Structures are given as structure tokens and as C-alpha cells.
């Protein structure tokens, strides 16, 4: 792993350790811990999306569906079959990986807008499934009373517990992703983003790696879904709709598509905006999102991660 990544990881870990200490001692922002849990959950998804978009050069407007598959698998297995949440999470991962593979093999042969349309269609279909299969999913009103996680007989019941669980998994996924990026697979992916014909000529199995990353990003989203289910304890189809898929893509773009750290940054910003800071705008928050996206695309095409380096360059130039 590159030195800079090690430094960032260390910095992130220290920040994550200090965050609850600070937040829980300042009454007014005590609930930021809850927001940070959502940041973690969404970060899992956007890290996978960042691998897919920034490194494999593919787009998906259907990742809310993978998130939902994980969430509903966990929810259904735990309430209807009283399965352990951990086992249910693994089952969710298995199911989602299978679905991602089946969807990915044909649709990743498409390019650009067509791939976007195919994944969008997939997301819509899954959402309709959540809405219509009432006997399984509870339909539009969803279902509740989903039990929480237990670790060695100790049940996780506070925000702090979930904060620790979620961010440990995020860090694991982050290290895993960074390792993949700095390996022959990561190089193969980045290469096909720069020149697919040259990557092909080097013997890189381009389509195979696109599918593998698609499945991996689906798995991340599924884990996020399971965490979401047990944390929130309630599921309804509207949490996994097209708008979420678009918002996830936006998080990646705002943070910086070609950098996995960008996904974390973008997710953090947009989640805090959505859950906290934009409440005064009510339904007009979508306008703010649009403005942010527009500003990023126009002035910071490499995303927020490029802000400091770009300022540095401007400063140097005088």
C-alpha cells in the first residue's frame, strides 16, 4: 500500500476514535453520532461504486437495489426465520453476489448510456418487487421489529455500538479496496479505463474484471443493507428507490470519482447535508443538491479530494 494511503488511514482511524468522544460531550450535536452511522453505511456502498465508476469506468444507477437486497434478506430471515443477524448478512451477501453476477454479465457488455439504462431498469424492477411481494416484504408499508446484532451474547443496542460495528466494517472494506486498487487487478481496471484496446492487447480480461468489480460493489452494498436493517429496525421500499441510487452516484462524483477517499468525503458531505443541514429547505433540498453537483462538475471535475491540491497549485502559481 502506498505511504500516503497509510497516512490517510491512520488519520481516519484517529478521527473516528475521537469523533464520538467529542460529539457525545456536546449536547447540541449529540445526534451526529447517528448521522455518522449512516455516513458509514452509505460509505460502504459508495466505495464499491467508486471502484466501479472511477476504476472500472462503468456506471450503475441500480445500487440501491443491491443495498435493498441485503437489507430485505437480513430483515426477512431474522424476523420470519429468527436467523442470527450475522448468518442473515452472509446469506444476503450470497444472494446479492449471485444477482449482481446474473445482472452484470449481460449488462456490462453495454456501454455508457445503455449501461446506465440497464442498471436503472434493474433498480426499478427490484423496487417494484419490494413493493408488490407483500407476503415477503410487507409491501409499501414495509415491516418493523427487526432484531439487532449480538456479539458473543452481548446485544448491540446503542448508537455507539453500531457506530463501532459499522465503521470497523467500513475500515475493513476500505483496506480491502485499497489493496485491490494497488494490485494487478487494480492496475488492470485502471488500464482499461485509459485505453481498452491496449488493455485487451496486454491480455487483460476486461469483461471479467468489470463483472468481478460489479459483484464486489454489490456485496459491499449488501453488507451496508444488512447493517441498515438492524440499525434502523424498520424497512420500507422507499429507502431503496431510484433517488437513492442517483444520490449514491452523486456522492461518488462530488467526492471525486477517481479516488476511493473521494467516495468517503462525498458521502460524508451529502449525508450530513441530507440528514441535518438541509432541513430548512424542506422539499427544495433537491435544488441544493443540483447546485452542488453543477458546481463540482464545472469547477472541480476531480471532486472534493482535488480541492486542497488544486488550491496548492493555484497558490504556487501566485
Amino acid at each position: 500500500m502506498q505511504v500516503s494511503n497509510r497516512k490517510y488511514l491512520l488519520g481516519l482511524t484517529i478521527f473516528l476514535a475521537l469523533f464520538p468522544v467529542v460529539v457525545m460531550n456536546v449536547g447540541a450535536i449529540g445526534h451526529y453520532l447517528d448521522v455518522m452511522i449512516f455516513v458509514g453505511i452509505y460509505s460502504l456502498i459508495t466505495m464499491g461504486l467508486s471502484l466501479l465508476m472511477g476504476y472500472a469506468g462503468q456506471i450503475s444507477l441500480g445500487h440501491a437495489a443491491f443495498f435493498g437486497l441485503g437489507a430485505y434478506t437480513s430483515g426477512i430471515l431474522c424476523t420470519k426465520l429468527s436467523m442470527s443477524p450475522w448468518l442473515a448478512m452472509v446469506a444476503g451477501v450470497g444472494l446479492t453476489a449471485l444477482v449482481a453476477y446474473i445482472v452484470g454479465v449481460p449488462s456490462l457488455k453495454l456501454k455508457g448510456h445503455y449501461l446506465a439504462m440497464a442498471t436503472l431498469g434493474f433498480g426499478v424492477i427490484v423496487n417494484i418487487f419490494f413493493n408488490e411481494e407483500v407476503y415477503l416484504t410487507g409491501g409499501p408499508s414495509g415491516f418493523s421489529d427487526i432484531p439487532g446484532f449480538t456479539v458473543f451474547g452481548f446485544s448491540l443496542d446503542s448508537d455507539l455500538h453500531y457506530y463501532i460495528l459499522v465503521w470497523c466494517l467500513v475500515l475493513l472494506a476500505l483496506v480491502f479496496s485499497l489493496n485491490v486498487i494497488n494490485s494487478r487487478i487494480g492496475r488492470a481496471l485502471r488500464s482499461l479505463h485509459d485505453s481498452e484496446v491496449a488493455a485487451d492487447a496486454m491480455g487483460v480480461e476486461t469483461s471479467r474484471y468489470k463483472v468481478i468489480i460489479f459483484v464486489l460493489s454489490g456485496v459491499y452494498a449488501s453488507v451496508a443493507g444488512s447493517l441498515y436493517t438492524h440499525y434502523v429496525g424498520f424497512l420500507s421500499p422507499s429507502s431503496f428507490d431510484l433517488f437513492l441510487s442517483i444520490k449514491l452516484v452523486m456522492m461518488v462524483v462530488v467526492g471525486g470519482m477517481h479516488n476511493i477517499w473521494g467516495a468517503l468525503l462525498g458521502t460524508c458531505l451529502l449525508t450530513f447535508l441530507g440528514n441535518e443541514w438541509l432541513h430548512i429547505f424542506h422539499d427544495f433540498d433537491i435544488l441544493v443538491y443540483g447546485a452542488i453537483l453543477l458546481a463540482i462538475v464545472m469547477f472541480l471535475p476531480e471532486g472534493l479530494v482535488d480541492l486542497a491540491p488544486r488550491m496548492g497549485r493555484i497558490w504556487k502559481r501566485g
Partner: protein
Amino acid sequence: MNTEGSRVFLRVENLKKSFGGVQALKGLSFTVTAGIIKAVIGPNGAGKTTLFNVITGVFPPNDGSIALDGVSIEGQKSRDIARLGVSRTFQNVEIFGRMTVLENVMVGRHIQSRAGIIGTGLRLSKMRREERQIQESAMDYLQFVGLEHRAGELAGNLPLGEQKMLEVARALATDPKILLLDEPAGGLNTRETEGLAALIMRILERDITVVLVEHDMNLVMDISDEILVMNFGEKIAEGRPKQVKDDPLVIKAYLGEEVDYSDL
């Protein structure tokens, strides 16, 4: 260079390729003997790059056959053909611009390494060892083309001449048996072209057969063992540099026909 007899390494027979109404290759046949440098020349639009693209599987031929060391490869995918020992460079440089110079060559080592997604994600010790080997051999190839001092730079920031050398290093990193160079001297200055000629001779010493599409006639005449001349998708001459140079059909293709004014 044609010392070890005449084992045919690449055999192309009756190769046809058309794009819509344009016939880029009209039943082309030729062979390349193992261990030689064969140049493919011809005016613009003669079908030289199309020939390379069909051999390396960028697109399948409409008809005809391509055999590599007796194994038929026509219509196979690029990546499978690469695994059979065919590597190439591109006329319009196709480097991976947002990766470092070293990483570009490391991609060349892709088919010589194994690690899968789980192994790399978890950084198993076997994978770390493999990664080190990839890096070391990539560095060797950079040294071979004289770019080791550029290893850490972004490939996109290199001048064209060095990008072309980088493509050669990357192609060599796949351990090819035959190397197809598409206009390697295009855009190079005289000194760089001399370096290129020396480099190609050193590649030959590694038991790699070289096929070369090139417009720089000095380079072609200097280093090739055989020349294939194409025009409008067909072979118009083939042979040693001297024979080809004096061939009336070749002269006609390059300089145009002499007009007979006596009828006027």
C-alpha cells in the same frame, strides 16, 4: 539475421476484411519466418494497421486464416491472442496516461501473474511476493528501453518519443514470441530513430520475431530482413529490401505512374 533456417512463425492466408463497402484487406497472404524483422510498408490506406488489428484480434477477419506457429488464431479475442505470445504497439500511442510509467509496464506483466480478487484484497503473502516480482521485472523492461529514470512519472506527461518507447517496454513485458510494431518511428527525431533501430536489434536477440509497419524508409531498409509491400489491401511485392526497392510496382505505388505523353 535469417540464420536459423526458415521455420515459418506467422502464416497469413487469403486474409479479407471489409468495413462497409471498403475492402481494407483483399485476400492478403504472406509468411513471417521465426527470428527475423519483417517490415510492412505501403502508402496511407494500404491496410497495414488493419492487418495488425486483424492479427491481434481487435476485429475478426471476414475470410482467410492466420496461423501462429501452426496454431490458427483468426477470430480469437485480443486477450487470448496476447496469451499465445503476440504483443503490439499502436500507431496512435495507446498508453495508460493516468498511470505511472512503471505501472504501465506492470500491466504488461498481467498475463504472467495470477493473483485473484480475494488474494489481492487480503494481501496474502503469496500475492505480495508476486507483486514484488511484477515490479522488479517491469523495472527491468524499463531499463531495457532506457526509461528507468521516468518510472515514477505519469505516463501521460511523457513526450511522444518516450511514450512510444514505453509502449515497446509494455509490449515486451508480456513475454511475446512475436512483436508487432505499428509505426514506432512516427514522430521521433533522427537521434531517437537511431536509438529505436538499436533497440529493435536487441529485441531480436531475445528470440522475438518482429513485424514492423513503418513509413521511415531509411529505418526499414536498414534493419529489415524482409519487406512486404501493400497497396489497397493487396500485396504488391515481397522480398529482401534490395529487391523491393527496385520493384517497378512498388515505385509506381509510391511515386505514381509515368504518363506517356506520346499519344497527345
